[in-house]
């Protein structure tokens, strides 16, 4: 009986879920939209997806090697970033731009700030906005079935007719992963059922955005117009997969709702009053910047604390 046993602090049991499994779930949830994107846009979409993921993973690997840090690609977060970025790119984008986007997402937005958990901005969206500003025409020219075509949301902004059913199914122009609302919702439901994402952010986002559009859209209570807005411009992709990014969204329950409301208002403003038809990406990265403030303003009251916290006397 001289053997010494392990001595660590309680608890001595742990749950099953770890970071890698969470990332795996997110990847699985994106598969319907990914496969639909490839089906919809052809092999070029597949190339963009593969190139972007590789670019992200290799960037993280090299960065860790160069600064002599522990290798972190096993947590799969770089794969998630790569896939999300690819789904936000048009399939016609030159491959080297996608590579550049991947490098920017991982090196500039994520690793330079300390890696997983430390970045204040969603890496995929940060990179997308970087590409949008740098290569505007390549990032905003879309085609469908080989014919150059505007996205439904751009058409909507021009006051033209769009087909909401096509928007729901996704058989139209757009970025690789944003077009099929049905595929995205299947993934979102999977994430909610698995307990990976909290419904609060997307719910607050979509409700606020809808109210904003109904109030200021100039179409009154036109539900078709509203549905077209909800289905277009990557709103569903953004609300369920980008705004819910753990690292760059508030951790406090009340903060999640406020964050969703902020995103809804910003997206509404950008879409209705901005020059761009879109707005989701910018709304989310600006929302990301507000997260520390939102968290500070929404410190949850602990169990059993009823009054407003009394000012500590001994300080």
């Amino acid at each position, binding site marked *: 009986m001289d053997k010494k*046993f392990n001595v660590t602090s309680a608890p001595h049991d*742990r*749950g099953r879920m*770890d970071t890698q499994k969470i990332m795996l779930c997110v990847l699985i949830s994106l598969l319907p939209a990914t496969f639909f994107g490839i089906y919809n846009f052809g092999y070029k979409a597949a190339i963009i997806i593969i190139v972007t993921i590789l670019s992200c993973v290799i960037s993280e690997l090299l960065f860790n090697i160069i600064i002599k840090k522990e290798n972190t690609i096993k947590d799969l977060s770089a794969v998630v970033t790569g896939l999300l970025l690819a789904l936000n790119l048009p399939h016609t984008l030159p491959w080297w731009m996608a590579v550049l986007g991947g490098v920017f997402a991982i090196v500039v937005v994520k690793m330079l700030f300390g890696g997983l958990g430390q970045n204040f901005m969603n890496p995929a969206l940060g990179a997308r906005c970087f590409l949008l500003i740098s290569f505007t025409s390549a990032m905003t020219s879309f085609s469908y079935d080989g014919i150059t075509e505007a996205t439904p949301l751009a058409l909507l902004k021009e006051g033209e007719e769009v087909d909401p059913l096509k928007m729901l199914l996704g058989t139209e122009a757009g970025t690789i992963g944003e077009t099929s609302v049905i595929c995205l919702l299947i993934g979102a439901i999977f994430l909610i059922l698995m307990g990976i994402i909290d419904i609060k952010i997307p719910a607050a986002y979509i409700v606020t955005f809808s109210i904003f559009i109904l109030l200021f859209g100039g179409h009154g209570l036109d539900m078709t117009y509203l549905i077209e807005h909800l289905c277009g411009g990557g709103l569903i992709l953004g609300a369920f997969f980008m705004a819910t990014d753990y690292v760059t969204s508030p951790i406090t*329950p009340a903060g999640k709702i406020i964050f969703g409301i902020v995103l809804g208002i910003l997206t509404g403003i950008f879409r209705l009053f901005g020059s761009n038809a879109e707005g989701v990406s910018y709304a989310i990265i600006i929302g990301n910047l507000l997260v520390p403030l939102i968290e500070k303003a929404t410190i949850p009251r602990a169990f*059993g604390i009823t009054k407003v916290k009394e000012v500590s006397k001994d300080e």
Partner: protein
Amino acid sequence: MGLMTFKGGVHPYDGKELSKAKPVRKLLPKGELVYPLSQHIGAPATPVVNVGDYVLRGQKIAEAGGFVSSPIFASVSGTVKAIEPRRVAIGNMVNSIIIENDGAYTEIGFTACEDYSKLSNEEIIGKIKDAGVVGMGGAGFPTHVKLSPKNPDDIDHIIANCAECEPYLTADYRRMLENPEKLIGGMKIVLQMFPEALGVFGIEDNKQDCIDKINNLIKDEKRMVVVPLRTKYPQGGERQLIYACTKRAINAKMLPADAGCIVDNVETLVAIYNAVALGMPVMNRIFTVTGGAVCEPRNYDMYMGTSFEEFLEESGGFMKECEKMIAGGPMMGFALQDAKIPTTKTTSALVCLDNDEASKYTPSACINCGRCVDACPEQLVPSKLAKFADTGRKGEFEKWYGLECVECGSCTFMCPARKHLAQSIKTMKKQILADKRKK
């Protein structure tokens, strides 16, 4: 209406099936018995015996060292061999009385009370105090202090903590099945002291047989009810239990009495019954030896002071390699270096894990996922608190209600980054509370 419970919490592997069907058996200690003088919250007890003295089972060997303190009794007859520091379950050295067991178990003689319903509150408190009754669920708070609230008239609930929410533990479960009349007797005594109060047995619904048994036994008792609780950890946490039973929420600065409640664990109520009705001090309790590494998981009638090692031997030792030994349950218990540690009033179990996964994980970066927030029964943000703790930011730690932590470990259990959240928070809490005492 659904089962009563609280917000947050986790569902760890239960493990109770290993030992729940094993009836309590007596283990007569063989070698020396060790009685640490601090086995309760408050001042250590003061020895009243000298080395060389012969003591009887049930004889007081140390008296209370203050109001918030508790006396200690010999559980065997024998000779006082030494009074010296010995290592206890939480890892430090505590001055202890060591008695060489003579194997005769000669008792000092206990006077049962003919009719305790005639006793006054002061007499009852006196008996409980003199019998060394403390909270036997693990905290070890002297029971006579708990039963002397500032405003006794405001007490309207006496809650028997029968949740036993820690995985693996089956001591309270066996007690409820084997001696429910003692538990109910203890409750009756406490209810007698608080004539306005309702007696509540809060039992998790994974112990349906206990719920039925106690319901059956109290069907004629107008002042007692059983409240079935949802099986969830930490259902037996004091604040969580009070909330589940009464929907009243208390914080760290409040006592259960501020919400009109007094909460006592199963073994404590049995000890109250033994003290008041039978005149017996605290010498024995039920103790579970279990875990995947043990040959024969069992429940024992434990003579306090017996070494863990003796129980382990009696349970056939290890059938697999044991990686971790825990005094208490896996969620809040203490990992032991070895088994040469004495059992005390608050020792409810020895859990021997054959696979200690928790020690193998390396913590990685927090991804802000919020699982700790969902799990926290105190509605705190453990990831933030741990960060403040690790970087020494005491002000922010308090602002985010760090001192409200009940140290249940649910956050660490859930953390996908395998961070030691509870450990960081506990350490910081200790520092801040120590600072406050200095001021």
